[in-house]
């Protein structure tokens, strides 16, 4: 099986937020929750660059390690998914996650955060694939339909790449060689303990 990863080529990202919009629309993510976001470093200054960030589906995921009810599970494609029926909304995964991926429908209110929500890599959850129940909890399951995540598919500049780690890494390397520069794959060192040098 593939080892699915995300890669954001920050030399291409133009902060159009189409990935954010695509994700929210595809999964009907409620107001206030952003499974994906675009972070701009050095905004308005020399060296400004934007990175689209969501759950990176880490190797040895910290969220899964700290979960007090062990609601996370890994798929055959090495995605890190979670079972909302088991989640207690304690917020531990949010403390541990390096990328701020876990989101909660509520904040405050006696600690009742509600069930955690995060990027599923468009792979749904533990429910039966592409059922209304699954859609309600996790959004659509494009992976089960043989499609890649919509954020990457929609990316106007093809900055955001999704797919097998080796394939997207080779695409990125080719780009870097062709244009002569590349600032590396943001989050890869933290998420996959791997540096992507061209």
């Amino acid at each position, binding site marked *: 099986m593939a080892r699915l990863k995300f890669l954001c080529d*920050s*030399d291409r990202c133009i902060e159009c937020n189409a990935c*954010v919009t695509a994700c929210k629309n595809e999964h009907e993510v409620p107001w*206030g929750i*952003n499974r994906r*976001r*675009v*972070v*701009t*470093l*050095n*905004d308005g200054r*020399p*060296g*400004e*660059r*934007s*990175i689209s*960030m969501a759950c990176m589906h880490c190797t040895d995921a*910290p969220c899964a*390690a*700290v*979960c*007090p*009810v*062990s*609601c996370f599970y890994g798929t055959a494609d090495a995605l890190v998914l979670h*079972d909302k*029926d*088991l989640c*207690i909304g*304690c*917020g*531990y995964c*949010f*403390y*541990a*996650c*390096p*990328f*701020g991926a876990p989101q909660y429908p509520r*904040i*405050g209110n*006696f*600690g009742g*955060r509600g069930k955690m929500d995060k990027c599923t890599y468009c792979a749904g959850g533990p429910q039966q694939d592409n059922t209304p129940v699954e859609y309600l909890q996790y959004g659509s399951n494009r992976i089960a339909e043989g499609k890649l995540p919509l954020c990457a598919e929609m990316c106007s500049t093809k900055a955001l790449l999704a797919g097998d780690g080796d394939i997207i890494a080779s695409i990125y390397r080719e780009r870097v060689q062709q244009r*002569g*520069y*590349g*600032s*590396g*794959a*943001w*989050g*890869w*060192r*933290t998420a996959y303990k791997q*540096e*992507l*040098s061209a």
Partner: protein
Amino acid sequence: MTAFPSAALAAMLAFGGTAMAQQQAPGLAAGAPEVQSAAPEVGAGRGGANGQQPEASERHSATGHPPGGDREAIAPRPPVPVAPITAPPPMTARGGADAAEAELQHALRGGVIQGMVSIPNQAAGILIQPEGRDWREFRTRILTIAGAVLVLGMLGLLALLYLWKGPQRIEAGRSGRSVERYGVLERVNHWMVASSFVLLGLTGLNITFGVHLLRPLLGPENFTALTLGSQAVHHFVAFPFTLGLLVMGAIWARDNLPTWVDVAWVKAGGPLAKGHPPAGRFNAAQKALYWFVLGGGLLAAASGFLLLAPAILDNISLLQVAHIVHAGMAMLMIAAILVHIYVGSIGAEGAFEAMATGRVDYNYAREHNGLWLEEKVQDAHRAAAASPAVARAAGAD
């Protein structure tokens, strides 16, 4: 009107036909229509046939060649650059370190990689927070291992102590007389804090160890139901616990202020001393426990309330610190309270009834808290001397 030949027109103008000249446009060409149309001609007023050419403020300013030929004054050329303009550096050289390098630096140095987001949740501007790794280490390794060692180790020590020494008897035996040690408020408050603490401790231990101990036994669904419920209990019971701690701070602080008697009590060997070194209402160990529970409990409560309302801090690093303080303090308190429970129940004969009924045996009070008993007896004597009627209520029975 007939058309005048130009010579005739000039003649008329010459001998004073001014009215005629005012009606007629100058320079009327030969062959012009005899009757002027009522509507103005096309181009009238715009420099057409009959229009007056408007006077420009500056002639030759907009178009055409200026008569003087001094074009520099009208359209200045860009100045010749002083320094040569070089090509911009490649993209990689503009923004400092590359991704892997930045991540490594932040991971080593601590601190988040912070940017700007265009969504309302500004906290999402943190791109990468490497501290999560340290907190994970605390949660999965330090807290579980140290907590287990602390709690199980303390239980083991107390079991050994019980097997070795057994319960500490009242040396003089029960006297059959009792003396009031704790009032109603003190006892009610104690049991409110005690029951809240047990609930908080058990539900907290479930969050830390339940996934290893109970989840395999109950199954994922049942364990989640249990943990969800115990989480709610933990959140709500925190309030009576905190209230009780504050009451304890108000009613017991004076009797727990350290004195020289406590130094002597510790020097004599404390709880392991032969016989009973003299002590006031509380001995040094009880005072230490009191201040530890009060300070540690309030610290755990404060950090817990911050975790309960994460929007107050709204800072992931501080939330991690709050959790470390909360969980670490809680484990230490559980270990300390285990000692307290042991001494107050099976560890020392006659101790439990102090909190159960409010009264202790006279001999127990004489052995454990002799100075306090003397004071109490003296107070009773004074009260008896002043008014014999209330002597029995205030003093030793």
